C-alpha cells in the first residue's frame, strides 16, 4: 500500500525535476547564444580598432591595446590587415596566418587544421580579418552557461527538500491519529482526538468517532443485558440450590416426593427463563428477520392451537373477535413469539371462568392486533415500565420471568411496528396492542379494493 506521503512526494519531485531540466536546458542554450553574440561583438570591436590604425610597410608588430576581455588580443585572436594588393600590412605573430579572403562578415574557416570563426571587414582599401578558435569559443560559452545553471541546480534540491518536509509535517496529525488507533485496546471506545486535523480528513475521523459511539452503545446494551441476565438467573438458581439442599432433610417418602416435585418446578422455571433470555437476545439482535409475508389469521390460529390446552386447563375462554385477511412482513416465528407471549400473559392474569379475546384489524397501512384479558389491570404508571426486561409490577404474585413484554416489544420494533398496553375501560383488565406494518401483498390488495 502506498502512503499518502509517497503519493504526494513522488509526482511533485518528478515535476520539479522535469521543470528543472527544461529550464536548465533552456538557460544553457540561451547563455551559449548570448556568449557567442558577445564574442562576435568583440571580434567586430577588434576589427574596428585595426581599421583605425595606420601601418607602415614592411609589416610591423602592432601595439595591441587591451580590449574588453581579460585576454590579450594576441592570445585569443589571429588578425591580418592587408592592403588592396593583398600585401599584409599587419598580422599577429602566430603559426597560423589568415590567407587573403574574399567576402565579408562571419564564417568558419579551417586554418592549419583547426576550425576558426573568421570575421572579415573592409575599411577603405584595406581588408581586415579577425579569427578566433571555434573550440575556444565553445569552451567560453559552455563555462558561461554552466555558471548560469548554478542557481537552478541549487534551487531544485532545496525545493525538493522543502516539499518533503512540508508534506511530512502536514501529514503528521494523520500519522499520530493512525498510531493512536493502532495503540488502542479493543475496549477503548472513546472518540479519537480531532484537533489539528486538516479539514479534508475531519469527516473521516468524525465518521469513525460516530461508529465508535454506536459500537459503545451496542456494547453497553449487551453488557447491561448480560448483567441483567446474570442477576435474573440468581433467583431461580438460588431456589434450585435450596430445593436440592432440602432433599436430604426428610426421610419421609411422601415429603421427599413433594420436595422432588418442587425441585422439578425450580428446574422448569430455570429452563423457561433461559429460553426467554435467548428469545429476548434474538429479538434485540440487529439481524433483520428473513423477509416474507405471513397471514395474521393463520398466525393467530396457530397460537390458539398452542395455547388452547393451557386456556382449557385454567378454565379460561379463548376467543377471536375480529379477523383480518391482511398479511404482515414478518418471519412467522417472530409473529408467533409476539402472539404467544401476549396470550401467555393474558391467560396468566385472567381468573378462572374469564375470557381472553384477540382481534386483528387493518389499521393505517398495517394490522393492529389486540389481546384483552380480564385480569386486575395495572396502575397507569406501570403500563410502560412492565416493558422493561426483568421488571415485575410490585403486586404481581404470578411466577414469570419479567421478559415476556420485553420480547413482544423487541420483535414488534424489529418488524417496524409498535407495542403498548392500555387498561380496559369497560371492566378491569388489560389490552395489549401491537401494530405491525402490512406486507406488500396486503398493500396491493388495499389499493385494488380502494
Amino acid at each position, binding site marked *: 500500500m502506498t502512503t499518502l506521503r509517497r503519493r504526494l512526494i513522488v509526482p511533485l519531485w518528478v515535476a520539479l525535476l522535469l521543470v528543472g531540466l527544461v529550464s536548465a536546458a533552456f538557460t544553457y542554450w540561451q547563455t551559449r547564444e548570448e556568449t557567442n553574440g558577445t564574442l562576435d561583438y568583440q571580434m567586430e570591436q577588434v576589427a574596428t580598432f585595426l581599421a583605425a590604425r595606420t601601418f607602415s610597410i614592411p609589416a610591423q608588430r602592432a601595439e595591441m591595446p587591451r580590449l574588453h576581455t581579460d585576454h590579450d588580443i594576441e592570445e585569443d585572436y589571429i588578425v591580418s590587415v592587408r592592403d588592396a594588393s593583398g600585401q599584409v600590412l599587419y598580422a599577429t605573430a602566430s603559426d597560423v596566418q589568415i590567407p587573403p579572403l574574399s567576402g565579408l562578415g562571419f564564417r568558419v574557416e579551417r586554418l592549419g587544421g583547426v576550425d576558426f570563426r573568421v570575421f572579415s571587414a573592409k575599411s577603405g582599401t584595406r581588408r581586415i580579418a579577425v579569427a578566433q578558435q571555434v573550440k575556444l569559443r565553445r569552451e567560453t560559452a559552455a563555462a558561461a552557461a554552466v555558471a548560469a545553471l548554478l542557481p537552478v541546480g541549487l534551487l531544485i534540491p532545496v525545493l525538493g527538500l522543502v516539499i518533503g518536509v512540508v508534506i511530512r509535517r502536514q501529514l503528521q496529525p494523520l500519522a499520530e491519529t493512525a498510531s493512536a488507533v493502532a495503540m488502542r485496546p479493543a475496549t477503548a471506545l472513546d472518540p479519537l482526538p480531532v484537533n489539528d486535523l486538516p479539514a479534508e480528513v475531519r469527516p473521516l475521523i468524525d465518521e469513525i468517532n460516530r461508529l465508535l459511539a454506536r459500537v459503545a452503545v451496542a456494547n453497553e446494551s449487551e453488557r447491561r443485558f448480560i448483567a441483567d441476565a446474570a442477576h435474573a438467573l440468581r433467583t431461580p438458581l*438460588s431456589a*434450585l*440450590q*435450596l*430445593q436440592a439442599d*432440602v432433599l436430604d432433610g426428610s426421610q419421609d417418602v411422601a415429603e421427599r416426593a413433594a420436595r422432588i416435585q418442587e425441585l422439578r418446578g425450580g428446574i422448569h422455571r430455570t429452563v423457561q427463563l433461559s429460553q426467554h433470555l435467548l428469545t429476548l437476545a434474538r429479538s434485540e439482535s440487529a439481524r433483520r428477520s428473513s423477509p416474507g409475508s405471513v397471514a395474521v389469521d393463520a398466525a393467530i390460529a396457530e397460537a390458539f392451537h398452542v395455547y388452547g390446552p393451557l386456556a382449557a386447563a385454567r378454565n379460561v375462554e379463548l376467543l377471536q373477535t375480529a379477523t383480518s385477511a391482511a398479511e404482515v412482513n414478518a418471519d412467522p416465528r417472530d409473529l408467533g413469539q409476539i402472539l404467544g407471549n401476549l396470550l401467555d400473559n393474558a391467560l396468566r392474569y385472567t381468573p378462572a371462568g374469564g375470557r381472553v379475546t384477540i382481534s386483528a384489524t387493518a389499521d393505517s397501512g398495517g394490522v393492529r392486533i389486540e389481546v384483552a384479558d380480564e385480569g386486575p389491570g395495572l396502575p397507569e404508571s406501570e403500563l410502560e415500565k412492565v416493558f422493561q426486561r426483568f421488571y415485575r409490577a*410490585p403486586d404481581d404474585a404470578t411466577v414469570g420471568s419479567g421478559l415476556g413484554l420485553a420480547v413482544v416489544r423487541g420483535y414488534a420494533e424489529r418488524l417496524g411496528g409498535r407495542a403498548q398496553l392500555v387498561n380496559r375501560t369497560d371492566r378491569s383488565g388489560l389490552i395489549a396492542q401491537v401494530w405491525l406494518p402490512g406486507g406488500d401483498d396486503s398493500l396491493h390488495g388495499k389499493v385494488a379494493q380502494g
Partner: protein
Amino acid sequence: MRILLIEDDRMIGASLQRGLSDDGYAVDWVQDGVAAAAALRDTQAGYALALLDWGLPKRDGLAVLKELRKSDSALPVLMITARDELEDRVTGLDGGADDYLVKPFELAELKARIRSLLRRRERRAEFALSHGDLTLDLIAHSVKLRETTVSLSAREFALLYALLERPRAVLSRRQLEEQIYSWSDAVESNAVEFIIHGVRKKLGASLIENVRGVGWRIGSKP
C-alpha cells in the same frame, strides 16, 4: 426457636421454610415488605432471628430493616439478597443487618450463619447447651446423655432447646408452641404434651417438670 422469613420468591421461601423446619426451627414466612414490617412490630411473636430479602414487593427490605432498628430492636437480621456488589453489602450491613448472604447460597451455610448469629445473641462461646449429663449439640442437632447419643425428632429437639435456653424459667404452652411451630403448622391442642411425653420417654421423666396451671420447666439434673 422462631425465625421470621421474609422472602418474596415462592420457591426459595418454601425451600427455606422446609430446610429450617428440618432443624427444628419454627419458621414464619411473609412475602412482602408491608407484611414483614407488621410481623416485626409484633413483639409478642418471640422471634430469635429474621431472614430478610432485600428486593421485596410493596416495601424495600432495607426500609423494613431501618424501621426495625429505629424501633430499637436488637433482633438479629440476616440479609439474603441477589445484590453482590461491595456497596450493596456495605449498605445492607450499615442499614442494620447482622450478616449478609448473597444468592445463590447453600442451605448448610445459611444454617451455620443462623447458628452463629443466635450464639452471639445469647453470648455463648460454644454451640452446645449442657444440663448435668445431658448435652445438646446445636450444630449436629444431636443429644447426648452420659456419652450415649439419643435420637430426638426436630420438634422434640426444639422443645428441649427452648427449655434449656432458660433453665429456671417456666414456659407456658403458648410460649413452647411458638418456639416449635410456625403459623403455617396446624397445632393440635395436646401437641406440646405429646412432644414432652416423647422427650421424657427418651431422656427420663424427671428432665421436664410440670408446674401445674403455668407450664413446664427443666427439672433436676439427670
